[in-house]
């Protein structure tokens, strides 16, 4: 929570409606996302109860487990879901494009589009992860055989859940998370976890304030919880008798009634997000998602093992390092794309905005062997400058050009510029900021950061348990109880 967001929340209270905290959209939105609303049975170990799933608002498909404690019916549910999800995933394995990888030393193919799953909330992502865990090790032959689609579903669900941890990925997105990134409501983040209440603040019905709409949204009779947990009163008064009655149509109606309001909310959220213009770097991050998707399609086709239950030491360290780099890059990209996000860094002193008051575009640095073009500009800052000489800053308006702070006196900052001006000793017109130009400079960088070096799996040091044993699929995994 930054002070700007906190202030936006305060303003939302006064205005009676949520306030924007982003000027552009920072998540990718597919033209045909798969909306997935799972429900699980209370108390059980992640037993699926029902789901509403589909990639268009008009055609939700209802999946129900008539006796949630019946193992075969659970796998039946998994097989039906697999049919829907795997064929959705497969539908993106068509057209590819050729892209340069390894810093231009190689090329590879990448699918031009990729699947995107939208769930209502963080609990939905948790459901995807655990349902993936409970299905991906199953065997399709022998004693505990399940439908061949079930383990494949498990691997895809696990892939999506792992992608969801990756900062900036849009492959598996929670609607509350996506909306909360773009709007600040006049309630707490605890209450924002309720999708109906969050949307009540963002787009209250005519004649109602956000607070009134949110209050109404908390009534589980009017707006049933968006899952995966169900309303206990519903469980006791509707669900239990419906399961007991043995009538599938009664049960389906009861569950459809619980799920349909959330279905509507999900698509309302989609339209709200679509109405925002996409940030210019969203496409770049989606390209990473498409790359990860392509890679996993290939891995599955080559017969790779399902994802491990726990990462081994080297893989865990690599993954953590990767996530940290992705987080830093994602933070920088959002700030570069969005002045409102950048303003948070101005507030904390990691960025300053101002106008150019002096510029010497032809300045040469002759101190080295070769003379080089190093223009100086003076920026008169509107913000308190908390950065000192020697610090390198970049302006989102000119991301290829770096500025090194030469001196700071009062609100005037002198920068020495390098990059983005061609190879000659005179700067091409427009490549150096001119007097009067308004710019923001920040220490955030989106330039390439080399990955840290890790030992190979076989060289895992003894401090980390030594080289791990090879994974061998065993009967225990395939036969794992699910009760």
């Amino acid at each position, binding site marked *: 929570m930054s002070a700007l967001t906190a202030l936006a929340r305060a*303003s939302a209270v006064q205005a009676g409606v949520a306030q924007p905290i982003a000027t552009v959209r920072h998540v990718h939105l597919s033209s045909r996302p798969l909306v997935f609303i799972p429900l699980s049975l209370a108390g*059980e170990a992640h037993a699926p109860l029902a789901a509403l799933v589909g990639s268009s608002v008009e055609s939700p498909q209802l999946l129900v487990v008539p006796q949630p404690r019946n193992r075969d019916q659970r796998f039946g549910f998994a097989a039906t879901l697999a049919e829907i999800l795997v064929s959705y995933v497969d539908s993106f394995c068509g057209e590819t494009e050729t892209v340069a990888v390894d810093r231009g030393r190689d090329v590879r193919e990448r699918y031009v589009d990729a699947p995107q799953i939208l769930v209502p909330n963080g609990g939905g992502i948790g459901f995807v992860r655990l349902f993936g*865990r409970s299905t991906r090790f199953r065997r399709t032959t022998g004693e505990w055989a399940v439908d061949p689609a079930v383990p494949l579903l498990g691997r895809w669900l696990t892939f999506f859940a792992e992608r969801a941890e990756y900062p900036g990925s849009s492959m598996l997105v929670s609607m509350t998370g996506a909306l909360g990134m773009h709007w600040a409501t006049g309630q707490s983040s605890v209450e924002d976890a309720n999708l109906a209440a969050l949307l009540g603040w963002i787009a209250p019905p005519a004649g109602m304030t956000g607070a009134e709409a949110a209050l109404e949204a908390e009534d589980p009779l009017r707006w049933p919880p968006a899952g995966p947990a169900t309303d206990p009163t519903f469980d006791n008064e509707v669900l239990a008798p419906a399961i007991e009655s043995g009538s599938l149509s009664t049960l389906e109606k009861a569950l459809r009634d619980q799920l349909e309001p959330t279905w509507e909310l999900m698509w309302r959220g989609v339209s709200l997000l679509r109405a925002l213009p996409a940030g210019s770097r969203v496409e770049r991050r989606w390209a990473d998602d498409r790359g990860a998707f392509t890679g996993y399609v290939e891995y599955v086709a080559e017969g790779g093992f399902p994802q491990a239950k726990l990462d081994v030491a080297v893989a865990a360290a690599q993954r953590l390092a990767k996530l940290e780099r992705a987080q830093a890059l994602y933070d920088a990209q959002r700030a570069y794309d969005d002045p*409102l996000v950048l*303003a948070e860094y101005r*507030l904390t002193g990691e960025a300053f905005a101002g106008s150019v008051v002096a510029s010497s575009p032809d300045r040469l640095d002759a101190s080295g062997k070769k003379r080089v073009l190093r223009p100086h500009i003076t920026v008169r800052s509107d913000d308190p400058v908390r950065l000192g000489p020697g610090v390198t800053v970049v302006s989102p308006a000119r991301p290829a050009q770096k500025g090194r702070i030469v001196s700071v006196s009062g609100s005037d900052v002198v920068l020495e510029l390098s990059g983005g001006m061609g190879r000659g000793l005179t700067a091409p017109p427009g490549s150096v900021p001119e007097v009067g130009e308004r710019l923001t400079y920040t220490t955030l960088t989106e330039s390439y950061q080399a990955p840290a070096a890790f030992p190979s799996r076989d060289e895992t040091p003894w401090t980390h348990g030594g080289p791990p044993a090879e994974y061998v699929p065993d009967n225990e995994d395939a036969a794992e109880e699910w009760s």
Partner: protein
Amino acid sequence: MTSLDRLRGDVQPKNHNARTIAALTANPGCSRRAVMDAAGIDKSRLASYIGFPARFGQSQFAITRGNAFEAQLKANGCAELLRLLREALKLPIEEASYDDLESLEQMDARAARSRQLLTRAASGEEGAGTLFDHPLLRLEVGGRWVYLEPDLVALRTGGKFYVVEIKSFAVIDGQADGTKVSAAATQSAVYVLALRRLLAEAGHDPLLVSHDVVLVCPENFSNRPVATLVDVRKKLSVLERQLSRMARIDAIVESLSPDLTFDLAPDSSGVPQRPASELVDGLGQVDARYSPECLANCELAFFCRHEARGTTASLGKSVREELGGVSSVELALSLASGSASPEPDQEEAAAMLRYAAKLRAEIVS
């Protein structure tokens, strides 16, 4: 009639349990909850009556599963639990004996019998039990005795006691939901503390009770139990500190108006006769410290939230802090726009708010 009885009125007091004590320590600054709980007032009933019902239903599916899991563990004299505990605590087999204390109906008798058995075990007497099922412990909370009922207490050779807590949430690949584990650990810490005090009163070393509690949960997606040792030292120190602070409940009650009561004054058919507005006024006399976390912990939370509208605290602790600790939304916004002049101790917060408002205004038109 004590002042607490007067506050509650002519009904049976609602008893504390480990869960309510844990919740109490989550927000120790809230006098309202402290007084309500100390007086044994049925907060849930009160909240419903004044139009802010709590929403803490429990699904029958969850209850059934929880009971089935505990029954499975305790079947045949705790056969399955013993197997688990032998592995987790390295209990030697010959030590196994089992005392079921749940069957005693009288609270006092049960507490006395529990005390007798547990102190006998502590003194290392021959033939003292190994497993004590649902013993009844007592803990002083805010000057009142509260009865507590741990699922099980196990005694290992060498005289260490372990509190065993049975929960029905799953541990998957060695990991479980952090909030649930934390809540279970806090509850267990309450039992550890009560047991330690019991032993100390009987002249034994309180540290005979381990700070490691045994959490027994279903493993992965099965009904197979798995035992995990959880260190509750941190929870214990928080708990002890909060409980010592709560000793001041009497002082809070003293400061209340002598005719204040939350007695619903039900008529012969149980329908409350006291006007709701009177109760709301009464609640207003006892300070609450609302935070959004209360919604998950306290039956009165919806009322307190309504009352706290317009405060920065109702937006969450971090929002309040980011707004420089200014307590009201209106004041924060006035300081941000410059229409209110800050008190000397608000200068810094006001400057930051003005700057933030300027930045937002520059970008959001």
